[in-house]
């Protein structure tokens, strides 16, 4: 860990102003950032503690719900409105990390958590995300946990989180504030693909602070979150599926799906809903949905299995949601 300056932001504008400075990072729960600082992966000159800002509220927002950036993962997962109207979100959060971590982890920090790529977290290995231009250690290395969708020759890392996958299925929005402006970005567009600039995980610019995530009016339906992993807790997803699905008269009327563990962002492909809506659920249809999902998928040896695994997990979730017997 490099020595750093610690500042406590008292007001949002203050936080935005401070984090606009070079080599400055916001500190929320610290469960990801502090670990990475110990490993010297993150080396901020200044840490701006935003923990005292009043961004922790979870409140009604019209028909929807606004979850403050500093609401803890635990608070969100047990919130009565979340449990009643957005169960996929509660399930996704509870599938992540451990109770102790969720008690500290925040909405904003969870969205911004960095990849778990082994080469990213080891400063003696090449990594374009950590050190642009140094190469990608994972492509020819241990790529078991890496992406199969939307990769680039520069980076094949995944966004590792669960919460954002459910938020992508729910079509939530990220509220962002800076000194000069505020803006709202759909969760589906918040994270980016690595392309030639894998060092940028998401669309946040320096000086921008996440203030909240807003969930649209509830849509009901069957809501499922399925996370595949080798041990049953305290492990990141090899592949995950968040599903918000509805049927009327035996046909899909809603099929909002998002996928984790497969890409540098929670993966959402609108063509899947287009395919499913209006059709009768069947194994053959689910297979077609998987064809769309995995069109253009590319794997790197160690993670070849993620392609059939994603196909099977998608089928599992849709079978469970629709009652189709395999």
């Amino acid at each position: 860990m490099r020595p750093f300056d610690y500042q406590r932001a008292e007001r949002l504008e203050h936080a935005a102003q401070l984090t606009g400075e070079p080599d400055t990072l916001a500190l929320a729960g610290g469960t990801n950032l502090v670990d990475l600082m110990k490993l010297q992966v993150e080396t901020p000159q200044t840490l701006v503690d935003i923990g005292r800002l009043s961004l922790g509220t979870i409140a009604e927002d019209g028909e929807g719900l606004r979850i403050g950036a500093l609401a803890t993962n635990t608070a969100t997962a047990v919130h009565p409105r979340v449990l009643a109207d957005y169960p996929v979100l509660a399930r996704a959060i509870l599938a992540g990390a451990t109770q102790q971590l969720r008690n500290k982890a925040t909405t904003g920090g969870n969205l911004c958590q960095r990849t778990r790529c082994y080469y990213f977290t080891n400063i003696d290995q090449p990594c374009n995300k950590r050190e642009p231009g140094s190469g990608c250690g994972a492509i020819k290395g241990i790529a078991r946990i890496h992406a199969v969708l939307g990769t680039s020759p520069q980076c094949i890392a995944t966004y590792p989180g669960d919460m954002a996958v459910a938020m992508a299925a729910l079509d939530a929005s990220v509220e962002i504030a800076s000194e000069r402006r505020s803006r709202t970005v759909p969760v589906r567009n918040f994270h980016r693909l690595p392309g030639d600039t894998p060092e940028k995980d998401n669309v946040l610019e320096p000086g921008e602070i996440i203030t909240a995530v807003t969930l649209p009016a509830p849509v009901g339906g069957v809501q499922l979150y399925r996370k595949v992993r080798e041990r049953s807790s305290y492990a990141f997803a090899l592949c995950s599926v968040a599903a918000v699905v509805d049927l009327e008269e035996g046909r899909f009327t809603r099929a909002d799906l998002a996928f984790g563990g497969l890409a540098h962002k929670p993966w959402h492909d609108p063509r899947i809903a287009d395919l499913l809506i209006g059709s009768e659920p069947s194994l053959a249809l689910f297979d077609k949905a998987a064809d769309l999902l995995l069109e253009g998928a590319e794997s790197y040896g160690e993670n070849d299995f993620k392609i059939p695994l994603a196909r099977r997990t998608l089928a599992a979730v849709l079978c469970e949601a629709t009652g189709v017997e395999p």
Partner: protein
Amino acid sequence: MTVHLKQDAPDNRDVLDGTGQGVIGAPLPRPEGLMKVTGTATYAAEYAVEGCLEGVLVTVPVTRGEVLSIDEHSVLTMPGVVAVISDERMTGRPAQGMAGEAPFQPAQEVCYWGQPVALVVADTFEQARDAAKHLAMEWRSEDAPIDPASVETEEDESTLQGDLAHAMAEAAHSVDVVITTEGHASAAMEPHAALAQWNDGALTVHASLQMLKFNRAELADSLGLEEEQVRLLSPYVGGGFGSKLGVSQEVVAASLAAMKLGRPVRVVMSRQQVFQTVERRSETHQRIRLAADAEGKLTGFGHEALVSNLPGETFAEPVLQSSQFLYAGENRLLKLDLARIHRMTAGSVRAPGEAVGVQTVEQAMDMLAEKVGMDPIELRLRNIPEVHPAKGTPFSSRKLAECLREGAAAFGWEPRPRAPRHTREGEWWIGTGVASGARVHFVEEAKARVTLRPDGTALVETDMTDIGTGTYAILGQVAGEMLGLVPDDIEVRLGDTDLPPGSGSGGSVGAASCGSAVFLACQGLREQLAKRLNVGADELALKDGFARWDGGEKALPELLGGEPLECTGHFEPGASTEDLTVSSFGAFFAEVAVNRWTGETRVRRMTGAFGFGRVLNARTARSQCLGGLTWCIGNALTESLLFDPVDGHLANCDLAEYHVPVNRDVPDLEVLLLEERDAAASPIQAKGVGELGLCGGAGAIANAIYDACGARVFAYPMTPDRVMAAMESSRPPSEST
């Protein structure tokens, strides 16, 4: 007074069964347990020593090569930095278990990626850690093989008997499989740590080590000191599992720094350093061949394995250890090969050999049972050999058949040939599997001093360690049983090289070896007391603090007359096991659920039945078995060291990415302890239990996976991707998933 026994003959007297105090074997809690769970037991790094400096090991990202220069000045001006230690006595590798001499030096000769080569010492830990990342070095690096399949191998061990190939060709039923296991980490909770102090030519080190008498010799040899100048203290060890058998890099580095600077120095490895620099369990590539007649009697048994280690290391994962005698078969071929590669040091990780060598045989036995069309337990029972199949030596004691039968009854095993995919609950296929277990028995020379204090209480002292196993409890129980005292009246002091040298904790030798030393010391005390009373030692009964003999009774304080009475027990292994096969045995039963879509496997329940001689404490013995079963789950389903194919560095080097089972992975575990007395194993008729619980059980899980979903997986750990792929390839064409 010293009582010395070199055990050359079995001891059938079962003395501990006749003493009558009733503490031996009782499920007593650990005397130090409360301290441990309330955080008041002090571990190596936790001593508050005034003026203590903090050291951080500096590692190099080179697979093989040499550090040419270290530029101390690159960090000496950083805040708080006191010194850079790059003495050529630094060690880059840990010592192997029971080496008793310095590990490979100098550290600057680099043999694996991430090898420690220097130590940065500063006022605070944070300063040292930052400086360690900034230390400028020059090195030379050269190509190095890192893949065991890419190099020529050396033969380490082989047994040839009859003609296996012929037996395979003639067999009514045969199995020929290749099964692989990946590397394992000990992953002890307490990271490796040392706090060294150098005063007037004497070195005192608080460290986290398993075998102090060897460690003292290793450290003295590393530093060029006399053993008498070195004192090691390890009263509490937060798990070792083999990784603390030999003295490791931080102990030598802290000592060198303390000697150079004349100030106390503490070095604690980071979790990543623990993973990347202490001993790993080798990956293995195993071929099992079984030949059987129409009734399932083995006519041939083949087990070949390839393991790896660094150049210069003598250790080769002894995969075949129990295969030598577990099952019959007159035609035998057992062969162990060693590949020299540049991954970090391979060495003992809990139950070296059997922890990966039994489960593969057990999978092959399951396949054979299927071919013969027989219940897999019946197949095993039919193939328990009368005597050691190669040496012809009888077994000193063996509860294998009883473990299989009684374990089956407790588990609710349905005796039938296996036919997979019989039960489905929703998305989950349910199946059960069985495996035998075995672990060879060792004992090691050990001394312990027992003092009867004037107040009638007793003190037991040895440099033996308690690595979380329950040594404090069981040594007190042996003494209590022998001296007629309740455990509260016995104090046990461990983990200090100033005390008589015990066996150390490793290879499951501790309980039987040190227990025997305490037993002998107490025998000496009993004799002295009897002498005072003018009665034969056999006529003296000690119970509840009283001495009783024909016609009299005296409280111990009265008998001691204000003076302490002391005796040292000295136990040495002798010829008692020479013409015998001495091993612990067990049986494992598992029920698993396999997800039909994803191949995720969850263990739903497990039963283990174990026979390991006398049970010294039913609670701590059971705990050892529970831990063993938990290791079986990790071994079967989740644990594997992932080495980078380019430079051989260990990629998953923390507890988030090296997946030991978590609470949710560990279901109800049932343990049956089958009491037996093994007269040849030790004077207290006990064998080792610490490792038995993980020797074979992963095979029961593998067999249960097959019984559940019809997938035979031939690579451990059986992660979702592997199970899914095996399900795909085993799927009958009519099935859709």
